[in-house]
């Protein structure tokens, strides 16, 4: 009887494969962003705990190179600072004339990258700070060069940040010079696209693209990248604008989390 029955049943391996595939589909379709937080945070806590010493060792190994780079950057910034001080003084005079209110300066929390998702299709990093430093979901993450991404999940002492290079990331952006707005998305870590910009809009190669501030997620003026190519050849209403990202996503080691964006970060759902 048993043998007869087994001839009608699929082999055990196929049954288990079907069960596991069903389980994956059920997990994918039923899990919301927050429902997977407990297991996600448990895994991240383990990763962060082990990765901290690794990150520390890597820091020591790259100290000499970083030091030389920072010296060069410092000299450059001293010169630029002198020029900006002039511009600031002029700006303050003009603001006073126009009775503008002063914007709140941004507050940053430094964080170390202790882990990276190394799958090409998705891009995220594990940071070694979390709620213990007052961080919340959706807070912007920046590097010295520009916008890097936003916090996706926040645990007590670690958090997961979604990078701009992730295929699911989008940012409302503005061309700094002409104030033309659009939406930035990533093609890969060294190429972004500025989309939804009408043909004949004023965009030139070399223009700097920054966050627009039109959504409460990112404060205005964070650098995203520089226009590297403008084309009106594509069919449709919009231009094809390529950007070179400002941040070096291949070498993210330390980042800053922006804690005051001017809006309620916790309430925002992308």
């Amino acid at each position, binding site marked *: 009887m048993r043998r007869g029955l087994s001839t009608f049943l699929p082999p055990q391996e196929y049954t288990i494969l079907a069960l596991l595939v069903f389980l*994956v589909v059920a997990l994918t379709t039923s899990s919301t962003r927050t429902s997977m937080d407990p297991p996600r945070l448990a895994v991240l806590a383990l990763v962060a705990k082990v990765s901290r010493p690794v990150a520390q060792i890597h820091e020591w190994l790259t100290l000499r190179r970083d030091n030389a780079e920072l010296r060069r950057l410092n000299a450059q910034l001293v010169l630029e600072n002198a020029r900006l001080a002039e511009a600031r003084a002029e700006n303050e005079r003009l603001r006073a004339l126009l009775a503008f209110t002063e914007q709140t300066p941004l507050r940053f929390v430094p964080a170390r990258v202790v882990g990276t998702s*190394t799958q090409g299709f998705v891009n995220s990093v*594990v940071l070694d700070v979390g709620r213990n430093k007052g961080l919340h979901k959706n807070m912007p993450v920046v590097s010295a060069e520009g916008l890097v991404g936003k916090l996706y999940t926040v645990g007590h002492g670690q958090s997961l940040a979604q990078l701009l290079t992730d295929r699911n990331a989008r940012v409302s952006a503005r061309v700094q010079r002409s104030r033309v707005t659009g939406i930035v998305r990533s*093609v890969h870590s060294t190429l972004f696209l500025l989309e939804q910009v009408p043909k004949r809009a004023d965009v030139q190669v070399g223009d700097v693209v920054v966050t627009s501030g039109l959504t409460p997620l990112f404060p205005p003026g964070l650098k995203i990248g520089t226009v590297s190519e403008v084309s009106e050849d594509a069919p449709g209403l919009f231009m094809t604008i390529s950007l070179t990202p400002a941040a070096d996503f291949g070498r993210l080691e330390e980042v800053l989390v922006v804690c005051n964006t001017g809006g309620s970060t916790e309430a925002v759902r992308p």
Partner: protein
Amino acid sequence: MKYLSYVAVLVVGLLVQVALLRFATVLGVAPNVLLLATVVVGLRRGQIAGMLFGFLSGLALDLTTATLVGPSALGHTIVGFVAGLWYGYSVGLNRGASMMVLVLCSSVHEFVMAGIHALTPGAGFGFLLLRWALPGVVYTSLVGLMVFFLLPEKVWRARPVTSLRGLL
């Protein structure tokens, strides 16, 4: 006790993947050591063990990314199934043939991942295959060379287990 060793392989593999291999990326791509481990488990212990290990390792990888849970779990489960197809022959499988199994499994995995991610708006399936999948297969296979050609054969050769009962 043997299950503990698989759990240990999974945890160590995950930590290596997330914490260490970020320093070894080329063009944004890193070798997938958990996929390699899934292939070895599939070759050593068959489809069921390979699928279970693949499911858990893929799930663990998914949990370290800022996206929906599932794509890696599905990809690794299928890899465990495919690698386990060679389990019966694995006792006599030479290093070159084992490498071919790894290349096949890695290709299947990247194909599945590209297919899933092509469903979201953005770059198309062809671009994903060329930009991410192909380099991923090459890089993972290069690391696989070290496993199959430098490590002792007992690390990846088959052990006779024929059913779930035998596994448990």
